[in-house]
């Protein structure tokens, strides 16, 4: 051990490297360290580890984590911290630390590197299993470390075994179904601020799946409930003895030990041996025996049975001065002075983890504790949790003396929440008898320590209340009350640790096409479409989005423009029954589709609601290539597979995703054929030889491509399909050839304008999961003859009811006024009713300015819209959607096709 210096509340202290900050503070004489959360009473160290209810600190150095118990922080050079009053604060400076996650599979996971854990680990090693041993302490030994005892050699051998991996400072925070364990490894905090952060993470989250899980987490010592039981100087006896004996704390000259078991005697002896004068051991039991009791006697420590602590009195700075002892038979009291009151209220085994998976702890009167003696072929408990307390504890079920209402006001059950016996009694009087209700009424057990010490006291207090009410020792046993429910995590865990590396651009995949880098170089502004990055528009210097979109639209309608359509889902469908299959999936027919031709198709779910669309090409008799929406690709493939696998296994069809394999370039505009002719020379691209909705194989510089006359813009357009690896070459070549044509690249926004001008829908924009094909005025794509998925639902009353929203066009009266998308539509002069509600008659789904029309236009879903052509409706637009506050726009209902109704341009 080497001496280091650290800051606490801005003062410099010396400490031993690696010792708990709590030990260093005590050795430096800090007894009163903080004030309690609500009552502002002085408080000091009580415990040894994560059960510490009082002294929570804020790290000022290093990672600046808040709300850490001083008992678990290891002292290191440069460490700086300050005390808290139960309320943490979040530093606004960026958290520079790294946090990550790892996945680990193991034969046997042993939780707890104490005696019990190490012994079971040894058994599993001998059985030829690989063992992962995790423990939250800086070193192995558990209890032995507190006693300052070396590990016996056989257990050192276990640790040294080649098939054992030991992780220290690794706290198990959750136990989940099928032996799934989550643990938090603090890898660098103990190095302090001066040491450079090691490579890798500050905190690593271990996700562990084990064939066998062994839980040997040990136990916490319990305090007792008595008046003014919260004063600095009142500590758990095991903690006090450890700080004195192991960490050389020399601030106590006189101690009083109050106990209900033999642990108190063992701790009294340790204090005694270190020169602390133990004035008396007050034991609630009528008598006690066993080695530790004999040893205490031999050491000359006075012992008084049937006595316990009733109350305490403070010195000038609020710390313990006087202990008031009560004789439990005569009820008479007497005083004795001490700086230390060491309390041993029995052990509370750590049942938290097992209860996470719903295993119920069992009350054992002999142990005065809830135990989990669980052993299946996959999960077992060991050590104190399983009832093996090792020593000769022989505890009595005793939680404190009977207190009057005045004493109860200062008898603390949950030190962190400042909740007292008084509040617990009020809860019971109020009619609350469930421990969960009492917890919620009093907030006991809801603080940072999650009731690690207060939970059992609450149960004890309830039993005592009941016993008093029943006038004697009859009444409730803790078994009847049951434990508080424990939930993960076992100790608090920083958000960032659980977030891990799923931060920034790694938080969700970014999907890109083969042409992405070109788009970036071309200065595209991107849009997130699901996980895809798609070019939204390609602004030239100084352009605003509207300028850009108008320029791109004009190019597509009057010249030639090009778009990367590679994100469309593509599914290769082949097999003798492919056509039959598609007939069942799509609302329209595909068995009638000639080879080498393409057809638009619409899919419904069984409920008759449209869920995807796209163009499917018949490559040959038994071979189709389906395209889906960008967002729908995975959904549709899963849909196809579900029907093939679970309903129609007789159909001979195989489906394969080729979304990435094939890149798709859409060449659009009156000059597209001219330009394409320069690129594709081995097939006839003329109108008659290559009509609309036909598909042809061709080659460009020896690269095989499939050209299809598909148009999502209503313009003369060609789709060039080429493998990912050749897409960039083709695009670049097209771009070079396109220069004389002023070839213009366009993005999704222009695509939306162009398709809307033709009344082509976008699933998810012009639909909201409630439209049938008929609602979309697409009955032309619904087969009357054949059966298909969803057809039956069209017969349901509501799906064929009048008054349904139907897709129509909207022309704003003001040519320049683009109505906002999502805006609702009312009849003219609609007024709010008395509840302030205004009847609406539909809403705007898509709305743009059309350079081709020279005006604004929109698509909308309007009640009975198809019957209301020409009707003028109102679109009330509240601030801030318009400049100058709320206004009502007017628009007339029209057909949804605005450009080239006769499809002359498309088919030219």
């Amino acid at each position, binding site marked *: 051990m080497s001496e280091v210096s650290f800051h606490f509340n801005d003062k410099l202290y010396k400490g031993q490297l690696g010792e708990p900050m709590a030990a260093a503070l005590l050795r430096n004489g800090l007894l009163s360290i903080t004030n309690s959360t609500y009552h502002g009473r002085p408080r000091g160290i009580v415990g040894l580890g994560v059960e510490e209810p009082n002294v929570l600190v804020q790290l000022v150095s290093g990672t600046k984590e808040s709300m850490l118990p001083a008992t678990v922080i290891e002292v290191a050079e440069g460490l700086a911290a300050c005390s808290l009053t139960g309320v943490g604060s979040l530093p606004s400076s960026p958290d520079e630390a790294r946090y990550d996650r790892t996945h680990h599979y193991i034969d046997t996971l042993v939780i707890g590197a104490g005696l019990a854990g190490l012994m079971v680990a040894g058994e599993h090693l001998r059985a030829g299993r690989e063992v992962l041993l995790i423990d939250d302490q800086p070193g192995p030994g558990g209890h032995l470390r507190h006693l300052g005892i070396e590990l016996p050699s056989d257990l050192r051998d276990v640790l040294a075994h080649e098939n054992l991996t030991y992780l220290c400072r690794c706290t198990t925070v959750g136990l989940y179904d099928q032996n799934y364990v989550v643990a938090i490894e603090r890898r660098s905090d103990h190095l302090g601020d001066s040491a450079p952060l090691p490579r890798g993470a500050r905190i690593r989250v271990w*996700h562990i799946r084990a064939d066998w899980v062994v839980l040997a987490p040990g136990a916490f010592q319990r305090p007792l409930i008595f008046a003014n039981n919260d004063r600095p100087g009142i500590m758990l006896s095991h903690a006090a003895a450890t700080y004195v004996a192991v960490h050389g704390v020399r601030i106590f000259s006189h101690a009083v030990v109050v106990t209900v078991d033999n642990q108190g005697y063992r701790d009294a002896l340790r204090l005694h041996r270190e020169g602390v004068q133990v004035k008396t051991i007050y034991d609630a039991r009528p008598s006690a025996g066993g080695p530790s009791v004999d040893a205490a006697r031999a050491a000359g420590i006075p012992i008084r049975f049937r006595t316990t602590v009733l109350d305490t009195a403070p010195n000038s700075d609020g710390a313990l001065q006087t202990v008031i002892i009560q004789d439990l038979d005569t009820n008479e009291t007497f005083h004795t002075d001490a700086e230390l009151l060491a309390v041993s209220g029995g052990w509370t085994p750590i049942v938290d983890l097992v209860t996470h998976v719903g295993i119920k702890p069992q009350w054992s009167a002999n142990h005065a504790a809830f135990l989990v003696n669980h052993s299946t072929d996959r999960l077992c408990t060991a050590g104190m949790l399983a009832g093996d307390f090792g020593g000769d504890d022989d505890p009595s079920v005793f939680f404190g003396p009977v207190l009057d209402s005045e004493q109860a006001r200062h008898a603390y059950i949950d030190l962190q929440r400042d909740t007292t016996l008084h509040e617990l009694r009020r809860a019971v009087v109020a009619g609350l008898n469930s421990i969960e209700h009492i917890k919620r009424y009093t907030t006991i057990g809801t603080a940072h320590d999650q009731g690690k010490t207060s939970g059992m006291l609450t149960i004890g207090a309830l039993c005592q209340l009941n016993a008093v009410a029943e006038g004697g020792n009859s009444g409730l046993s803790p078994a009847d009350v049951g434990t508080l429910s424990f939930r993960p995590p076992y100790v608090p865990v920083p958000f960032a640790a659980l977030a891990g590396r799923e931060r920034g*651009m790694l938080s969700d995949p970014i999907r890109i096409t083969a042409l992405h880098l070109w788009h970036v170089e071309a200065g595209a502004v991107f849009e997130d479409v699901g996980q895809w990055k798609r070019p939204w528009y390609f602004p030239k210097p100084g352009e605003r989005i509207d300028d850009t979109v108008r320029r791109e639209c004009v190019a597509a309608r009057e010249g030639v423009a090009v778009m990367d359509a590679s994100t469309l889902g593509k599914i290769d469908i082949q097999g003798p029954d492919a056509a039959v299959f598609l007939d069942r999936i799509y609302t329209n027919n595909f068995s009638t589709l000639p080879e080498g031709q393409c057809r638009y198709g619409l899919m419904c779910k069984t409920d008759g609601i449209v869920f995807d669309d796209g163009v499917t090409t018949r490559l040959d008799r038994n071979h189709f290539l389906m395209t889906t929406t960008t967002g729908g690709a995975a959904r549709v493939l899963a849909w196809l597979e579900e029907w093939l696998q679970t309903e129609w296994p007789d159909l001979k069809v195989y489906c394969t995703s080729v979304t*990435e394999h094939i890149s798709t370039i859409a060449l659009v505009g009156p000059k597209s054929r001219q330009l394409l002719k320069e690129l594709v020379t081995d097939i006839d691209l003329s109108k008659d030889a290559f009509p609309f909705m036909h598909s042809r194989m061709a080659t460009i510089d*020896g690269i095989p491509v499939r050209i299809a006359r598909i148009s999502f813009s209503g313009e003369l357009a060609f789709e060039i399909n080429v493998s*990912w*690896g050749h897409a960039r070459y083709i695009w670049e070549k097209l771009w070079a050839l396109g220069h004389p044509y002023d070839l213009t690249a366009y993005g999704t926004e222009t695509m939306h304008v162009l398709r809307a001008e033709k009344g082509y829908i976008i699933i998810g924009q012009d639909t909201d999961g409630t439209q049938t094909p008929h609602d979309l005025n697409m009955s032309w794509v619904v087969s009357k003859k054949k059966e298909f998925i969803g057809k039956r639902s069209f017969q349901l009353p509501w799906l064929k009811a009048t008054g349904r929203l139907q897709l129509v066009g909207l022309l704003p009266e003001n040519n320049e006024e683009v109505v906002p998308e999502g805006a609702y539509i009312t009849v003219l002069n609609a007024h709010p009713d008395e509840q302030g509600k205004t009847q609406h008659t539909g809403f705007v789904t898509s709305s743009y300015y059309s350079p081709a029309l020279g005006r604004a236009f929109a698509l909308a879903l309007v009640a009975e819209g198809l019957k209301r052509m020409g009707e003028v409706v109102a679109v009330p637009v509240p601030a801030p959607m318009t400049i100058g506050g709320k206004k009502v726009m007017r628009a007339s209902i029209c057909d949804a096709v605005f450009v080239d109704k006769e499809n002359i341009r498309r088919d030219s």
Partner: protein
Amino acid sequence: MIIKESPLQGMNMGTVATVAIRELPGLHTIDLRVAPGSSTQAELAEALGMELPGKPGQTRWGSISGGSEAHALCLAPDWWLIVGFQEAAQKLAPLLLKNDNHFGVVDVSDQRTTLELEGPKVREVLSHLWDQDLREKSFPIACVSQGLMAKAPVIVCHIAPFRYRVMVRSSFAFHLWKALIDAAEEWV
């Protein structure tokens, strides 16, 4: 013939002393679908001149014309990938014409790209992103497994001691590359 561009353009980083990650661009791959144990499966194997591994998770190397080796991965009872076999599709084409045959064959060479990870720390690196059991006894050499790595769909092959291949959908390739570099931070 114009050379294909791969999603990661042969990127590589790290060192085999700890872990090295590099792209293996342009591995020719076909997706093969056929009823397991059917006579058609046997015909396909014969036409390819290599055995198809029988169970999902198994792989098999087969030497093909030119002495080079092709890799057959079984992904599902009726689903295989044939990797590194340029002529595979042509060899199978005639069988498609026999109308009693039912099988699927699709060129998916560009659907995915392949990353190879090698070095003593390769498992530590993979374990940050891969939640499947990589222990030798669970995932020995010549095993293949599909799953999610950094939320990207991947196919992982155990090629040789401390050497794994990760086939990733091309659109996810750059994302996975960044995730792997990040996961390897401790070692390179």
